């Protein structure tokens, strides 16, 4: 279990407990957190679960695999700290992770 905070574009904080093994995307979708569309369902094929990861956490989460950076090219306003939330798998170590959700996904 990890407590994950999703900050939506309108600065609303949503802190929820997400089970280990789920992705940060699934945590958001299952808890109706707005702003993460995840159109392709977690296949790293659509870039609509794009989030910004706070600097302090960015280096702690598993690095991007091949293909994620390519998909981020298509994301809405990608930045250096952009990730696809479907590629971040929740574990105890991620307790306290904070991600910011962009104003839109496309």
């Amino acid at each position, binding site marked *: 279990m990890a407590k994950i905070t999703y900050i939506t574009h309108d600065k609303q904080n949503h802190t929820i407990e997400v089970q280990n093994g789920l992705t940060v995307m699934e945590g958001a979708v299952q808890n109706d957190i707005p702003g993460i*569309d995840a*159109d*392709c*369902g977690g*296949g790293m*094929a*659509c*870039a*609509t679960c794009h989030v910004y990861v706070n600097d302090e956490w960015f280096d702690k989460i598993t690095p991007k695999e091949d293909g994620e*950076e*390519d998909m981020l*090219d*298509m994301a*809405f*306003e*990608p930045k*250096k700290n952009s990730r696809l939330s479907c590629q971040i798998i929740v574990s105890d170590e991620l307790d306290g992770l904070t991600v910011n959700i962009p104003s839109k*996904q*496309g």
Partner: protein
Amino acid sequence: MNKTDALIIGAGPTGLFTAHQLKLIGLDCEVVDNLDKIGGQCIELYPDKPIYDIPAVPECTGEELTNNLINQIKPFDIKFHLSERVDEVKKEGDNWLVKTNNGTTFQTPNVIIAGGVGSFEPRKFPVKECEKFENQSVFYSIKNKKMFEGKTVSIFGGGDSALDWAVELSKNSKVNLIHRRDDFRGAQATVDNVKELAKQGKINLFTKFQMTAIKGEKKLESIDIKSDDKELKTLQTDYALGFFGLIMQLGPIANWGLNIDKKTIEVDTEKFETNQKGIYAVGDICSYPGKLKLILSGFHEGALAARACFKLARPNEKYRFEFTTSSKSIKDRLGVKSD
């Protein structure tokens, strides 16, 4: 006006197999899709990715699955309307009157929505003011390359579309190519070509830059781009082209009076009918208790929706269930010999 027993919206795997099921039981159908090719998400998002959970097919790619489904409907004469998006669905007596963005119209008792997550549309520039110039000096696809001759064109993106057009337009235009990082995801040969043209000064390459503003009174005059290191540049340009791939938008489906929740359409699990009689939803776009977004579920849903269509398309006939292994009439429709 096209008259048909059933109109399928969406030419992805579910739409294709639903068409197969309709034809098998002796109903006509036509298919509309906003993409310029058949296959839906399978062909647009993951043509090369292997799929491992199609029953009796241990492994196949999105493209192979699409090709197999196209082969499976080859015996039938099914009309496809590609690069068209259904905009309107209106009730007219016992029929639905359907209209696409190209003005094609259909009259049908049955509409089957197999629309996945909606229609594919180009992803646009995040800078809102770009809307003002869209289709005049801001484009997301190119229909007539002649208009760019002798002009300055700023191309954004790092995939094959952006790179191919940068190479092509650099022959007769001044080309700026802007991408958010140093790496490109396009084919290596094209990337090498672009870098060579940049060395020769035929393409102005700006990597780690993104658009921050677009300016112009009546016509586009310049764009601002900003780097990761906060360096700001203003580029004089006549055109801005964005190639950021496609995104799925629910679009006009939201206006057809259907019960929609979280971008999916509520259906029953007997006919896969929506709250509107004669409108069905199958595949990823439908929702019901226990719904799984799997291709195999879409096949099942399509098979049942097709049977439900029979009643409205042939009100005076009774549908009789038959197997493909033994039915003479099914074999006739498939054009295969009966035993």
